């Protein structure tokens, strides 16, 4: 295997191949920045998602595409934190407020 041709040219190294990848990247970062989930959780979930792909037999898993895993991770976190289903609780600077627990007495 030969590495990508842009390998040693700093300027030519593409960061995103498509605008949607850039937006998916920004969306994941934004949700973490506004404290809807900790970045470490996004990262651990991404690692697990990629791990699943890597342990799937080659014939069954399709070609490698980093941002497919990125988007799958994003979906998992939006689900897990109920971002589309729970009421929106944010403070004055748009940061997510911690979900209230009944047992803090």
């Amino acid at each position, binding site marked *: *295997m*030969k*590495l*990508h*041709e*842009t*390998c*040693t040219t*700093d300027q030519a*190294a*593409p*960061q*995103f*191949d*498509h605008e*949607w990848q*850039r*937006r*998916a*990247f*920004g*969306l994941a*970062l*934004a*949700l*973490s*920045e*506004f*404290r*809807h989930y*900790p*970045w*470490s959780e996004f*990262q*651990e979930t*991404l*690692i697990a998602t*990629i*791990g699943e792909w*890597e342990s799937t037999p080659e014939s069954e898993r*399709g*070609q*490698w*595409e*980093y*941002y*497919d*895993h990125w*988007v799958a991770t*994003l*979906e998992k976190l*939006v689900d897990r934190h109920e*971002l*589309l289903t729970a009421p*929106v609780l944010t403070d004055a600077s*748009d940061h997510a407020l911690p979900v209230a627990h009944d047992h803090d007495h």
Partner: protein
Amino acid sequence: MTGQFAYPSDREEASAAKAAALESLLIEKGVITPQTVDKVLAYFETEMTPLNGKKIVVKAWTDPEFAEKIVTDTPAAIAEMDFPDGMAGAEGEHLQAVANTAGVHNLVICTLCSCFPWPVLGLPPYWYKDPTFRSRAAREPRKVLAEVGVDLPADTEIKVWDSSGHSRWFVIPERPSGTDDFTDEMLMDLVTTESMIGVALAGQTS
């Protein structure tokens, strides 16, 4: 774009559609605003760039005390520099620098996914996230380095650092010889993202 990175366009469209749908649903629900993603991207793209890493490397080349500190206590050394605040937790914690020396070359990889030190290097080059690169670089680093134009003497030790959630490695490359009278700006031009991952040398042009 080479063929090896091509993939079926329907899969790409599916991921693209999912990402776009998520963003609009989150906007509709009021979790984010239509400007949120643009604002975060703009901050990231102007502040979290390899320029930060270049400044660190040049300071290490010109200030022996800093050179010592950057490898022994990377976060404290970086805190001394006048950098913008990191995005909260987004890959900036746990930065760890390693320095190349005459007999030791460092190469940074991530075998699980791309735990890349964004705040100092910007985003990784595309190929860096490719599993083939990651596994080959772990297995046969000398050969991979030779393929990308880094021919190391046989007696140079190669250390491969696996970035993870806990340590995000970056390399302080060696200062090229013949640069004693260079200004900081001239020195910064020699430092590339690739040299800070260890897949190129500082000042390497090919």
